């Protein structure tokens, strides 16, 4: 169970390998890497800056991870979230989950990314040809987070 909030890039393969090696009873390791896109809704994006709330971010991510581990039998889990200025193609976030069974690994991984989208105190501003603007929260992200509330 690891949380890292950092400006530096990360090596998804190294993290997956480290988690995979933690127990020989892990049957599946699911991972998700979120990347900066060069456009959204036909609007081109040259860079994205992520701001966060140091202290609260780590607490919220730890809470979300604890919730995942209460819901699914996980051998391990990891969240790495970057902040600062990033460009298209750059990695933003990594979530890794390991379990004896694949269904738990998949569900927990998707849950973690869905919840951190709406419950971790990060804010994004995008640089576009029309200037820099704050990214609005998306209704689709709220809906994705809410589906785990049942």
């Amino acid at each position, binding site marked *: 169970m690891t949380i890292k909030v950092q400006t530096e890039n990360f090596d998804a393969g190294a993290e997956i390998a480290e988690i995979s090696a933690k127990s020989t009873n892990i049957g599946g390791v699911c991972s998700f890497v979120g990347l900066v896109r060069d456009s959204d809704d036909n609007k081109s994006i040259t860079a994205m800056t992520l701001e966060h*709330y140091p202290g*609260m971010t780590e607490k919220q991510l730890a809470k979300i991870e604890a919730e995942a581990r209460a819901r699914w039998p996980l051998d391990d889990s990891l969240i790495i*979230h970057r902040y600062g200025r990033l460009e298209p193609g750059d990695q933003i*976030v990594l979530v890794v989950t390991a379990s004896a069974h694949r269904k738990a690994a998949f569900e927990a991984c998707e849950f973690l990314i869905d919840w951190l989208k709406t419950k971790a105190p990060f*804010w*994004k501003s995008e640089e576009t040809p029309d200037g820099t603007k*704050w990214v*609005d*929260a998306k209704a689709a992200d709220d809906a994705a987070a809410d589906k785990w509330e049942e």
Partner: protein
Amino acid sequence: MKILYFAHFREKANIAEEDVDLPEGVADVTGLLNWLESRGEGYADAFADRDHIRVAVNQEHVEFDAAVKNGDEVAFFPPMTGG
């Protein structure tokens, strides 16, 4: 009380962080917002649309009826967009 402003709240109020003494009678988040708005145009502009204000007290996300007191750390920010 320490107050933190994130994202467009920081830009509009033109401040990232400040220490304030709570005036008498301010006991919850709504009261704090009303008082902050009275402190100047930047604050008034930042807090005009209350539907889009999210608040944390001592790094816990709370509603507007949550109590606040001197010594607390209060943060104002828009809906989160992580991931």
